[in-house]
């Protein structure tokens, strides 16, 4: 389901910049949190974005939902470019693009009941006649596996897992075609995580909604996603199907991410760096065991390593990529 067919949403050379602050920043420096990222997501596809915190995963997602204004590039959705649009022009697209956040408690109004949280988007977007709102809310609760009695509860009365179900339900009230789930299970307990992952899987299977799933947990990405993009300091460094990424990773950073504790004990993990490396050259060069002068001098372009498998590394052809089986 990767490259075939028309993508639902296509990012072309998207960049997001913030004003740099702090003692090291010059007067007019801009920091590119997302730097020249291109990727597409197909209808009904679950695309994972993995990488360390600060790698730009969340910024990328917020930019494509136009919660941030990109500095450059295009966001092509339903034949339109969302990137330059103002609020008024974006309004009709908003209901189609929804988000579920990491911390469920802070994404609800503490003074609204579950019913109000779910009814407000229905009313605001006139999804159904007023008389049907109540029925709709019950249907949403049933879909996310909660009893109808929960409609009168307040957010603080629910556990993290139950709230995350409501958050997913709220995102689905508007029948979006794309759902961004930002670390949606990382704050949940181990025994609850499986419930929410299965719920997201069901939602995709029954509604055909595309999901961009941001996570730092590679096992979770492997379970839920069809394709995975690996980000490092604002750059997309590798993109492929879960099998390509997990069984035959090409980029040295992806391989470090997939490494084991045993690799670490052998000292194969590479040192931790102080600050983001400079904007020229491969951002991973300072930590990469394979780096050469070329890597420091110029950023590697994204190249197709195989069908649907892209990697941004000058040396991907030379590096033995087969991972020893665990």
């Amino acid at each position, binding site marked *: 389901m990767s490259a075939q067919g028309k993508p639902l949403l296509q990012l072309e050379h998207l960049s997001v910049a913030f004003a740099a602050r702090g003692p090291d920043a010059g007067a007019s420096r801009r920091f590119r949190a997302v730097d020249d990222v291109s990727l597409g997501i197909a209808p009904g596809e679950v695309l994972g974005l993995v990488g360390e915190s600060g790698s730009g995963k969340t910024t990328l997602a917020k930019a494509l939902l136009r919660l941030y204004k990109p500095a450059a590039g295009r966001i092509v959705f339903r034949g339109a470019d969302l990137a330059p649009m103002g609020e008024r022009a974006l309004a009709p697209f908003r209901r189609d693009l929804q988000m579920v956040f990491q911390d469920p408690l802070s994404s609800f109004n503490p003074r609204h009941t579950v019913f109000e949280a779910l009814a407000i988007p229905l009313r605001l977007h006139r999804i159904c006649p007023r008389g049907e709102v109540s029925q709709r809310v019950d249907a949403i609760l049933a879909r996310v596996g909660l009893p109808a009695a929960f409609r009168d509860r307040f957010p603080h009365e629910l556990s993290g897992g139950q709230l995350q179900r409501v958050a997913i339900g709220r995102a689905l009230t508007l029948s979006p075609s794309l759902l961004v789930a930002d670390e949606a299970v990382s704050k949940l307990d181990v*025994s609850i995580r499986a419930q929410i992952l299965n719920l997201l899987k069901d939602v995709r299977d029954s509604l055909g909604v595309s999901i961009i799933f941001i996570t730092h947990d590679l096992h979770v990405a492997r379970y839920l996603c069809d394709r995975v993009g690996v980000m490092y300091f604002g750059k997309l460094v590798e993109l492929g199907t879960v099998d390509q990424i997990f069984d035959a990773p090409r980029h040295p950073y992806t391989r470090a991410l997939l490494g084991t504790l045993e690799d670490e*004990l052998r000292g194969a993990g590479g040192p931790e760096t*102080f600050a983001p490396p400079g904007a020229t050259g491969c951002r991973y060069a300072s930590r990469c065991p394979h780096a050469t002068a070329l890597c420091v001098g110029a950023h590697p372009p994204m190249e197709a390593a195989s069908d649907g498998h892209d990697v941004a590394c000058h040396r991907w052809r030379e590096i033995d990529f087969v991972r020893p089986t665990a």
Partner: protein
Amino acid sequence: MSDLVLEVRDLRTRFQLQGRGVEVVRGVDLSVAPAEVLGLIGESGSGKTVTGLSILRLLPGNAEVSSAVMRFKGRELQDLDEDAFQPLRGLSLAMIFQNPVGAFNPAKRVAWHLREIARRRHGSEQGWQAGARDALSAVGIPHPERVLRLYPHQLSGGMAQRILIAMVLALEPDLVIADEPTTNLDNIVERQIVALFRRLRDRLNAAFIFITHDMQIAAALCDRIAVMYAGQIVEVGPTRAVFDAPRHPYTQGLTATSLALKQRVKRLTEIPGELPSLMSPPPGCPFAPRCAKVMARCREEAPPMFGTAPHLARCFLAEPA
């Protein structure tokens, strides 16, 4: 048994909340030997952290802690008043917290913190620089002189956690309680810190209690595992035994999920339901409402620990026939 660093029997911790007593730690037994890492695993709210804070007496005033035994290197800690206990804290019993940056004084450089540690350990600052450089090198900090000049906010999470570990180890404690020390860190850095703990375990003679909810980390680092659920230890045993042949259905559920994620199954098996509220814990086994193997007896009677040492489980299914 006398060579245990810490032995705790029937630890109970209650909080006064809205005029009611809520028991959060409900009869925990644990022990840890020199150079041993005991993994305390469980979900948030299961009582792991409160157990650690109870041992170090770091809980707020609305907490009541009691235990039958709280023996540290042969000494009963309950006999000590706060004045007698305070010198032990840090120097003998130390804790590493989840949020490393929060453990630093934000207005002071790293050097100031290590100087304080030297003063605490040796009673003087003399020669602290050499000790600080050694401590930082031991935890894999590449340029100690440079790092000593930094303020806490200039450190990455992994760097801050390494320095904190260096500070704790410079105190040469006999017991280190590490509470989710890698949870806020990224994947690669997390593995580096776990590898660091493993090297330190091999080098030092300290006892470690490693609190985590991450099964993989626990499996990689710990010698023994204690699984907590609703304020009780529901299973304890050698790491391999607990993960390869779990006896409590809750542990079985946890290991199944983490194994299934690795093997890329079509669908994860869920543990249905939620953690019970400790405001009104269910009678009988606290896991009974979620348990796939529940029997009538489980809902009425709280199971004791069954099995033969060292592998025990708080479940009637582990009862010898």
